[in-house]
């Protein structure tokens, strides 16, 4: 069935809550009539009751921390951190608590919590509601970071996330919510650490994630018309990272552009560039090119925000530069 990412996430929550009583949903406004700001939790309270779909006060530290504590003791909570920017409020519970329980307690503990959160620019929401921040999260040992780029992947990856025994941060790009695609009916799981080859090609590899995977695919379409065969890889999960698929593609094309909406410093783009240099050096025919947002906060001004984010044009320019090397 064709559905949007928003609908796919909603359907997955319905399916997983029906399948496993230990799955609960908690967060700000999640039990409201409209199912939160974007309607993601629509229909859940009516179906599963307010004891499993829990409206919380505005206290991210306690939401995330309590979800972690409940996970540690037998539930499988899906907590909502409305915008990833609010990570600032609850980072200790993620960084020092949830991420470390399993290791620090010598393997006694499991923390099957999913933190769903909204990322990205493009909605004119300004510096404190538009950040990416997944590189920060992916840098933390002990948590998994997931960045779906389409509705089918959102369903497959969220199902896996909920059934995973480790903490998972599930990043939903706000500019993609309404994007539709064909989504498998019924149970659908996608393994973590397995990238998707969105477009096959032979001249150059373009790696993206979340929204930049969508942009890369668009860019590949334009490049194809110019006779350039680009291979597009959507990472799907940042931690674990599918290094193999990236390196195999690089071995085939010899050229690499990485597109990441994060700030450039210590970004996923940097990580992939590092990977290429460290383990794909012999296959490189040109320097790796990164297309990222600049090293600045996200401006509120729509015209500057447009300038800020990676775009199809910027990707094409980077590809042409790399090919011309």
């Amino acid at each position, binding site marked *: 069935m064709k559905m949007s990412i928003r609908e796919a996430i909603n359907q997955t929550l319905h399916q997983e809550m029906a399948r496993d009583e230990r799955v609960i949903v908690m967060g*700000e*406004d999640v039990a*409201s*009539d*409209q199912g939160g*700001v974007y309607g993601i939790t629509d229909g859940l309270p009516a179906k599963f009751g307010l004891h499993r779909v829990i*409206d919380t*006060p*505005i*206290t991210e*530290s*306690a939401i995330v921390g309590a979800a972690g504590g409940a996970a540690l003791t037998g539930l499988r909570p899906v907590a909502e951190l409305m915008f990833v*920017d*609010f990570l*600032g*409020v609850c980072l200790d519970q993620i960084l020092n608590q949830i991420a470390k329980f399993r290791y620090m307690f010598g393997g006694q503990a499991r923390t099957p919590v999913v933190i769903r959160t909204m990322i990205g620019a493009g909605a*004119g*929401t*300004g*510096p*404190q*509601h538009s950040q990416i921040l997944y590189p920060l999260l992916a840098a933390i040992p002990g948590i998994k970071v997931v960045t779906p780029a389409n509705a089918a992947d959102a369903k497959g990856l969220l199902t896996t996330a909920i059934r995973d025994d480790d903490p998972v941060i599930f990043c939903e790009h706000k500019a993609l919510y309404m994007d539709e695609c064909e989504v498998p009916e019924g149970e659908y799981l996608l393994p973590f650490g397995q990238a998707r080859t969105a477009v096959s090609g032979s001249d150059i590899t373009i790696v993206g994630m979340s929204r930049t995977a969508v942009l890369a695919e668009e860019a590949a379409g334009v490049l194809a018309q110019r006779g350039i065969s680009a291979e597009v890889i959507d990472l799907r999960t940042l931690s674990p990272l599918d290094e193999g698929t990236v390196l195999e593609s690089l071995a085939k094309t010899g050229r690499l552009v990485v597109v990441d909406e994060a700030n*450039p*410093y210590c970004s996923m783009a940097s990580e992939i560039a590092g990977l290429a240099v460290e383990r794909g050096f012999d296959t490189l025919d040109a320097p790796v090119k*990164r*297309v*990222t*947002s*600049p*090293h*600045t*906060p996200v*401006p*509120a*001004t*729509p*015209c*500057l925000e447009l*300038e*800020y984010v*990676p775009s199809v044009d*910027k990707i094409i320019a980077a590809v042409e530069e790399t090919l011309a090397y």
Partner: protein
Amino acid sequence: MDISPEKLADAYRLMKTIREFEERMRSEYQQGKLPGFIHIYRNQEAIAVAACLDMTNADYIASTHRGHGHCIAKGCEIEAMLLELACKEDGLCNGKGGSMHIADMSKGMLGANAIVGGGPPIAAGAALTAKTLGNGAVSLAFIGDGAADQGTVAESLNLAVVLQLPMIFMFENNRYAEFTKSPKPDGRIAERAGAYGMPSEVVDGSDFFAMYDACQRAIKRGREGGGPTAIEALCNRYYGHFEGDAQAYRDQDELAEERTASDPIPRFLADPRAAVLTVDKIAEIDAAIFAEIDRGFEVTYAAADPTPDKLYTDVYIHYEGRLR
């Protein structure tokens, strides 16, 4: 209570300016002429105005996502505000902040805040500056009833007591946080502040005179070294959480009743203490307000967007030449 005719006129002018400024904003926003998210302050005007009426530019406020009223009450210029809300180059923050991050350091307005509960620690820091410099300034944080639950608020309440800061915690209890009705009974927030050891009171936020009285006492206490005060102002959120939220989740009869009963402006004008404001005087003030707003929009729509190079200004950049 001590209030001069000039102050009374100011109080009316500011409340009315906030009201008309936002009504005009709403209609422009609905026509797609303003970007971002906007949160309207209607029916809470008396709180901001009472809080800021006796402040000078040397005093500080930390605002919230619902901050237009706070800005106007603290003396921000209408035109500069509008330029910012439209994200223009000459706006208060050069268009980089917009409605949810508007700030005016020259007026002691330390910023709206898109992080709920982000403001109180900052206001505590400003109060620490005032205390350290011994300059008699005070610092006030506006805090929603929803925000009152944040850890940052609890921590700031405690810090203000421990350090005896010249600070006012202005809780605006409009009984809603986004689409969710407050589970806290009226007065619970003031009780919490009291439990940390600071004087606290519950005030009718649509009664300007009661608010002004409470604020005068709190400001005096702060200026004289008496430490922090908390005020829980009970009020009504007239419109939805953000512009475009139709509030289908609210009991419509109750809302209609609250909207009228909690409108601070007619209540202010009906009060005998406001009798010095004659019909003519009010008409004169109103005319000036509408003219200022019209002019503001005219200038704003003629104003330039920031040029692309502005993306890289006002930030420490160690990535020169490799920005993307």
